[in-house]
């Protein structure tokens, strides 16, 4: 068996993943988006190190201030620096989104791969279930799940993960299916190598780029939905703060200081946009037939 495995390594094609990344960064929108995402991650995850003010520093002399040099994003109802609050809030938002994305990718891929590999009625059932849930808009589903599971940070991660699993499952399934129909796979099988081994060692890695592109889009959607849920008060609960809750506070204080909600809003926009651009460009780099 191992005598076959060695030449298999040469028959089987392995796409060079390094070049995908390089090609991606050659496109200006993708490069900028990538830089922005890195910046966001540093700014939020590294908030304790990078934030200009300590998180709970009050300044009662400057409530609801607009943007100034000292406070580029203004201040909130307690005089806290908004930039700092946005950075710490981002930590929560990105954490939730990242974890949700991992759950969605993990479960979704497992679901999709099993369906693709097994085919037959297992495939049918798994995909019908996925299809049913795709009919309901994400925010509505999210609300229902919040009603079901409550709205703590932990349940939010679970809810968002569940929300994006079916679509990911569909993608994983079609990605693996197209790999299973390639010539090199059929050739490897006909030589007598055990299919399972090939799938795990060669085919799955080949589906990685498509799935990574998808992961970026899922993360963007997760931020989007989490912000929406938190905005209506059904997401992250106080005292924890996320971008959505900041916007909620800003909304109630709208007539007092309209700057309050503007900056967190712009930051959400930028985050989602960058992740969308990244995912989109990754998809285009990987599949030249798409425009």
């Amino acid at each position, binding site marked *: 068996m191992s005598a076959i495995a060695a030449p298999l390594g040469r028959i089987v094609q392995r796409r060079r993943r390094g070049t995908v990344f390089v090609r991606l960064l050659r496109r200006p929108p993708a490069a900028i988006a990538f830089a922005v995402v890195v910046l966001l991650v540093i700014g939020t995850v590294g908030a304790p190190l990078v934030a200009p003010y300590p998180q709970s520093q009050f300044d009662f002399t400057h409530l609801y201030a607009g943007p100034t040099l000292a406070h580029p994003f203004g201040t909130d109802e307690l005089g806290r620096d908004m930039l700092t609050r946005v950075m710490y809030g981002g930590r929560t938002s990105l954490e939730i989104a990242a974890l949700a994305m991992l759950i969605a990718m993990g479960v979704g891929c497992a679901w999709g791969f099993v369906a693709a590999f097994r085919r037959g009625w297992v495939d049918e059932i798994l995909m019908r279930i996925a299809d*049913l*849930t795709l*009919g*309901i*808009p*994400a*925010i*509505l589903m999210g*609300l*229902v*799940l*919040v*009603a*079901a*599971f*409550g709205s703590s940070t932990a349940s939010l991660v679970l809810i968002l993960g569940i929300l994006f699993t079916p679509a990911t499952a569909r993608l994983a399934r079609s990605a693996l299916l197209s790999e299973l129909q390639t010539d090199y796979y059929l050739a490897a099988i006909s030589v007598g190598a055990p299919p399972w081994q090939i799938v795990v060692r060669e085919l799955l890695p080949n589906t990685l780029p498509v799935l990574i592109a998808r992961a970026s889009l899922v993360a*963007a959607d997760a931020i*989007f939905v989490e*912000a*929406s849920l938190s*905005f*209506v*008060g*059904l997401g992250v609960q106080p005292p924890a703060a996320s971008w959505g809750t900041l*916007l909620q506070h*800003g*909304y109630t204080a*709208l*007539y007092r200081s*309209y700057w309050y*909600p*503007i900056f967190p*809003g*712009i930051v*959400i*926009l930028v985050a*989602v*946009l960058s992740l*969308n*651009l990244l995912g989109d460009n990754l998809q285009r780099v990987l599949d030249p037939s798409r*425009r």
Partner: protein
Amino acid sequence: MRRYVVRRLLTSVGLLVLSSILIFCLLRVIPGDPTITKLGGSIEGVDPRALQAIRHDLGLDRSLPDQYIRWVGGIVRGDFGQSYYSQFPVTTLITQRIAATIELAVFAIVLGLLIAVPTATISAIWRNRWFDAVVSGFTAVGMATPAFVTGILLIVVFAVKLGWLPSQGYVSITQHPFESLKSALLPATTLAIAIAAPILRVLRASLADVASAPYIRTAAGKGLLRRAVVVRHVLPNAAIPALTMVGVIVGSLLGGTVIVEYVFARPGLGTLMVDSVFKRDYAVLQALVLLAAAVFILSSLVVDLLYGVLDPRLRVRGQESS
């Protein structure tokens, strides 16, 4: 053709039934207990018999299939059950608020299409690089901005700074058409932007696809000007494949409506839904989600039937000849 319509109708009904089961089960599998909400939050120190009484009132002491059948039976008669929280039947709650939501949705769809279709068409006729870049930018930003962010920005500009339009409230169109439009303009615009962006994207892609088809070259070869080629030949053919996506996007309108109604404090089904989630009022929730699923199924049914009307290749298959 008629058989096709009947088959589609049956499939839709089947989907609706399946969705109702899914929704019903989803809300029952959960850890929460509506009786708690009714009692105001906690069951400590409450007489177990009072608890039993409440459960009996809400019909929660029956078996699951029994509850489901009662629910569905009620729906068929137009009765969505009794709200767990308020003393009104669910149907009343819904009918009170449905007008606001429908007005908003219709207004938003019309506005959204008014933005998306002409822009895509102009883009195809003009083929100007800068215009295309701006449109792409608008599409990307529009799809990345949550509705409440757009809503808040619009409020800041038009309500707070300029004071032209109200930032809240609702006036029924039957009461006072002009005021109704004023109160709906900002929320409808917010929603319209949210749906115009993805529709624009799909439509542009479809237009670009069709523009490279041989029959478009034939049309140009007849001596038609670019404007006529795009409007009379490219657009009708591009609309057909784009229709599916448009149906999906319109269906997803419901999610955005929830948020927008909240931002603009419109008493519609969206705010009802948010309230119900807070209060764990499952009776209302399951009715609303079922309604949402029904709207989605209906819109995809309409799209499928529309295909049959718009694409002559799908119509009567009798007259093949040589």
